[in-house]
């Protein structure tokens, strides 16, 4: 049972953002990057947990992005992933999430993949498209927003949970499949120093973007982005809270309710 985990190297959620000169994205200069997207980190942990509990085969990580993404993949290797693959994009390349899904599908088709796992969305573009799109491109079932999964090798099925609006669904489905994870059972492990050193020697393969695009064939959507970022903007920061004060809790409550009714008009 082999698992492929897709990860994205993204800016730290607390980093300061500046709009790039193009007006279409952020300026990567001076931006602090996290080692991996939070949801992807949870997904790597979940894949490794299953490998340990259910004696899976290999766990492989895949990323699509510029050369700095190697750092994120190394982090997955330090957590315990066996091999990593980077589809390296030339600096300044703009892809949309659907095209990223097609690129991932081309690469994953060449790997053993009983399970393909992705985080539910990236922290930067928050698109949340890849898991479900990958399912279609790989002609596999996909299960999204999963919060916990247990494989049953005998029946070749996965038992899963997810929160839909208003209820928690306990369900099962066949695999091979693509899973997009809302959160894992455990918090992601912190790599130990020996594992970080070991990760340096683990295989990390780089494939140029062009090579993958040339193998794409006629997937719906093609080899160019279908959604163009027309503009990227930072709204003015919120001014900070207007502090409501009073002598007693009752007075504060009255004042706050009045402000919500008369000023903010939300009551």
């Amino acid at each position, binding site marked *: 049972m082999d698992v492929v985990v897709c990860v994205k190297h993204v800016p730290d*959620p*607390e980093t300061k*953002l500046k709009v790039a000169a193009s007006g279409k994205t952020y300026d990567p200069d001076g931006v602090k990057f996290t080692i991996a997207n939070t949801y992807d980190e949870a997904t790597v942990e979940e894949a490794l947990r299953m490998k340990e509990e259910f004696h899976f085969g290999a766990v492989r990580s895949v990323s699509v992005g510029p050369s700095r993404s190697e750092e994120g993949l190394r982090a997955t290797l330090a957590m315990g992933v066996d091999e990593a693959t980077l589809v390296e994009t030339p600096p300044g390349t703009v892809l*949309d999430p*659907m095209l990223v*899904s097609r690129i991932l599908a081309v690469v994953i088709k060449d790997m053993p993949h009983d399970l393909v796992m992705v985080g539910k969305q990236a*922290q930067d*573009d*928050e698109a*949340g*498209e890849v898991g*479900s*799109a990958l*399912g*279609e491109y790989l*002609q596999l*079932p*996909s299960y*999204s*927003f999963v919060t916990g999964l247990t494989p049953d090798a005998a029946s070749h*099925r996965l038992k899963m949970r997810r*929160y*839909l*609006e*208003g*209820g*928690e*669904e*306990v*369900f*099962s*489905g*066949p695999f091979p499949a693509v899973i997009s994870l809302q*959160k894992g059972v455990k918090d992601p492990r912190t790599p130990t120093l020996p594992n970080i050193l070991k990760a340096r020697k683990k295989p990390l393969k780089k494939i140029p973007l062009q090579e993958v695009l040339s193998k794409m064939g006629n*997937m*719906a*959507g093609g080899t160019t982005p*279908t*959604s*163009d970022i*027309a*503009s*990227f*903007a*930072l*709204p003015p920061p*919120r001014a*900070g*809270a*207007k*502090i*409501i004060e009073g002598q007693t*809790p*009752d007075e*504060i*409550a009255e004042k*706050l309710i009045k402000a*919500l009714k008369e000023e*903010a008009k*939300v009551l």
Partner: protein
Amino acid sequence: MTLNVLVLTDQRGGQLKRSSLEALSEARRLVGKAGGGQVVAGLIGQGLDKIADEVKRAGPSKVLVVDDERLKWFCVAAYATAAHRLIEKVPAPLAILVPDTTLGRELASRICAQVGGSVATAATEISVGAQGEVVAKRKVFGGRATETLGLKGIAIITLRPNAFAVDPAAQGDAPVEKLPLGDLPPAAQGLIVESVVSTKGDTADLTEANIVVSGGRGMKSAENFVLVENLAKVMGAAVGASRAVIDSGWRPESMQVGQTGKTIAPQLYIAFGISGAIQHLVGINNSRCIVAVNKDPAAPIFKVADYGVVGDALTILPAMTQALSKKP
């Protein structure tokens, strides 16, 4: 220029989601902006007669229904197959609007991978560009930035709940047409739902609620959390919680708001005893008005809040509940 808009409505357990009505209203506005076209409502599921009745009065020009026992549970590949049946019936140029519910989000990109075109998820504004292309505005980076996307081909857009108004004047009596589902591909078979545990039937759905009242570590105990629920009751609000509350086992995971929980965008969000870790803030950033009550004047939540009270949540909560239950 014209644009035809297919709205894929979302329903659960025989109830039409309000976000579906928001999408139908936005579809009518979008067709207006494009200079004409049809609004077609699409229904996918099992046992949809009652919902079809409701939808046909919400202003579409036509209602298309794929009603099949194989669609009883949400399996994205099966629903995408059904959506394909509907898409074949609506002429180009086409936009597809779907509520950004868990179901809608998953469906949008699977449809796009089948039929081509482009996707924008959790849009907060939709318009028509100079070349007739559909343009969607959406929040990114946890609400810290916005991007505007120009969409090529079939524009598939999920609509953030609460971001689009329901048109109160919408009415009509559109014809309802039933379409067969046909064969399902192998990827659309074999999903079995064992149980659905309803999460707190008496409180409103967090993601669709107009008002959300939330509690955090500052509530001090599971027992005290009742104070949050009491206020929510008199306000007709949904109840949320920070991760600390879930980790302490005070309330179930389904109430969690934030990065590993739900992303919400109510008109009013009131946070009691929540300091405002970035993981929480990304889940509430799109709220129209944020109120924070916290003992610590340096709590980061005061930076994003519109109104703040530096004080003890445990004393402010009952005072608010009392004040609001006095007056209608």
